[in-house]
């Protein structure tokens, strides 16, 4: 049977274009405002009502998760169709309908490791943005050495009982559910970890926001005291959680680095070269007057360009079926460096304009840059420190051996 892929894609493009034209509300085609990012879940306030309509429509089509199977609420699109969809979304400058750890991290892992009943139960509400998930990984005693986690999960016959503490739980205070690493065997390390899901409203769960140096509180300390969890909420097999955890970390590192922590731009903040031209000044040929600063800004801009080209190259090679192994760690390392360098240059170029904290007298964009600079210090810590990522590259990519 003749099957014309190109023709099919052209038809899909036409349908998609019509649908987006009819369904993407006008304000959803304007640049995203920080205050209007939609994370979904029960705590979502939708400050812009059109963002609610946009999420509902995209969720109904399954286009928040275009390549997930339709049976789990996803779009059921092929890679090629998804590429067309993304191109059409970019063409009308559509905002992402949903930001979600469920979409980026938990969902892909559940698709691989969950059972049928779990996938049917949890994935559709992720696609529609009805359930907001948070990640229970790090603990006070288990940061880089994640497998050293101590949160206990005991088998009580008809349920599990969880006791312990997590930290750096992103938006735990706003999330509906948590995917969590717990210890089901204390006699071994990696082989004693399980991957479990529970409702954040369960009795015994308490999330306390942590105030950061940037003045924001995106992370929480999360406490579990005798939390009862039904047994069908454990994913994979008991003591088999480490494999899921590692896979999920790859999704996390990829999703962090795909956006480069926003290291190539930010809302309402100019680039370091623009601030330098304004605050340091230019010579007669329009160059930044401070040659040393100019050279370092150029160096950074070139690093950022090289980083973006690398993301593109790996995407293309993956599409062509070429193996691109363990690139997640390379990109996570690069993304952290890029965003931190960018913020240091912003601060340097802004001079005393960057030294404001709040109130009047300072440029609003500059104050956001200052907060962003402080926040960026976490980039080389969260999602695997830069040192841990270098370990992963050295051992898994380059094959260097451990100390004997």
């Amino acid at each position, binding site marked *: 049977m003749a099957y014309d892929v190109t023709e099919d894609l052209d038809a899909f493009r036409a349908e998609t274009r019509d649908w987006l034209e009819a369904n993407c509300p006008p304000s959803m085609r304007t640049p995203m405002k920080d205050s209007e990012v939609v994370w979904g879940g029960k705590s979502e306030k939708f400050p812009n009502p059109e963002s609610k309509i946009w999420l509902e429509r995209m969720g109904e089509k399954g286009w928040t998760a275009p390549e997930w199977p339709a049976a789990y609420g996803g779009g059921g699109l092929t890679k090629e169709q998804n590429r067309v969809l993304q191109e059409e979304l970019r063409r009308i400058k559509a905002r992402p309908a949903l930001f979600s750890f469920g979409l980026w991290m938990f969902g892909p892992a559940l698709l691989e490791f969950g059972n049928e009943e779990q996938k049917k139960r949890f994935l559709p509400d992720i696609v529609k943005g009805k359930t907001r998930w948070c990640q229970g990984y790090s603990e006070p005693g288990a940061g880089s050495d994640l497998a050293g986690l101590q949160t206990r999960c005991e088998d009580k016959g008809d349920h599990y009982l969880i006791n312990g503490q997590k930290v750096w739980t992103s938006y735990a205070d706003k999330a509906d559910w948590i995917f969590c690493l717990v210890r089901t065997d204390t006699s071994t390390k990696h082989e004693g970890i399980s991957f479990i899901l529970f409702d954040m409203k369960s009795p015994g769960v308490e999330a306390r926001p942590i105030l950061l140096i940037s003045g924001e509180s995106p992370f929480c300390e999360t406490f579990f005291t005798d939390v009862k969890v039904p047994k069908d909420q454990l994913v994979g097999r008991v003591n088999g959680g480490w494999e899921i955890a590692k896979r999920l970390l790859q999704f996390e590192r990829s999703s962090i680095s795909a956006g480069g922590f926003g290291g190539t731009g930010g809302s309402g903040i100019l680039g370091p070269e623009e601030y330098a031209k304004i605050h340091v000044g230019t010579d007669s040929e329009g160059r930044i007057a401070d040659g040393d600063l100019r050279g370092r800004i150029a*160096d950074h801009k070139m690093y950022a*360009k090289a980083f973006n*080209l*690398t993301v593109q190259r790996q995407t293309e*090679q993956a599409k062509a079926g070429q193996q691109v192994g363990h690139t997640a760690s390379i990109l996570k390392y690069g993304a952290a460096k890029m965003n931190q360098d960018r913020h240091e240059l912003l601060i340097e170029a802004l001079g005393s304009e960057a030294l404001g904290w709040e109130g009047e007298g300072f440029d609003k964009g500059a104050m956001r840059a200052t907060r962003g600079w402080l926040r960026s210090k976490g980039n080389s810590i969260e999602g695997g420190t830069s040192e841990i990522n270098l370990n992963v590259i*050295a051992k898994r990519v380059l094959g*260097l051996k451990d*100390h*004997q």
Partner: protein
Amino acid sequence: MSFVLTEDQEMLRDTAMAFARDELPLTHLRALRDKGANGHDPETRKKLAELGFFGVIISDEPGGEHFGLVGLGQILEAQGRTLAATPLLQTALIAASAIQLGGSKAQQAEWLPKIAMGEATFALALDESAHFAPLNVATEAERNGQGYTLNGMKRFVPGGHDADMFIVVARTFGEAGDRHGITLFLVPRDAKGVTVQELKTVDSHGAAHVTFEDVIVGEGGVLGPVDEGADVLEPVLDRAAIGQAAEMLGSSAAAFEMTLEYLQSRKQFGQLIGSFQSLQHRAAKMFTEMEMTRSCVAAALAAVDAGSGDVAELASLAKAKASELVHLVSNECVQMHGGIGMTDVADPGLYMKRARVQEAMYGGASWHRDRYARLNGF
């Protein structure tokens, strides 16, 4: 833009990699050096011609198909791995590009087939000082009855000691530093008044200072527009920088692999030194830089073939990144080999010596950073 090679390009890459490994291993360069050949290697030139490597960006008929700069980049990367001294960058890339971009129909008909067959080698005679400064040209071309009279001196002309023809960048108007007033000329090595002073260089590839004293060039020797030669020279130099970057990527990859092997075999304190975290992290950082540089080189090569508007920006990006990479990797290669890295019998030193020549050619990292900033308006 494509980061994925076509099947034909993939085959060309495999052929080039195998040729460099089997016919031009590092021992080949070492042998040439030890017998004082200074990069002269007629036998290799013959083999490269037989493989068709000189004609990779030249089509049989005007407008016909060829492997493109992406294809030639694979060959240059392969020869960079073994530090092979060949005329490919000067002839197959620079001269072919200059004649394609600036040559008259007659010049193209005369020279492109000869280049493709490996029958003529070229060298671009550009620099007049110790640093790359393409508009700083004082070599004078004065109009006479039938053509021009050239006077001036070109320093460190890569491949100049081994070339049959020179592409000379001269001034027909204005002063050193002016963009307007530059004209390119095709000058045979054996023309009256051309003196080639062969240089023994640190990388054993050789080069030459070339002096032009009352050299008469006919109208037919003018390559491209009179006074506006920079319009041809600049895109040619972009391609040269990209080709050089591809070669540097190959050198970096080979030096890195050699270092990695040493880390996995050398023991101290009863441990493989590659198990020490300080060395692991440095190796991982080098690898990360290499992956990024590979993306830049691939993007720049593809941009030339696609005729994109951002070739200049990508050329500066690729050359700067490759310069930084080869500098870092060649230094680390010596350091991580320890004492053995300081000896002549070991290979790290060869990579470091070649690296500094590669870095300097067609603009170093700081030159290209400055240009990148200018192109981006700051």
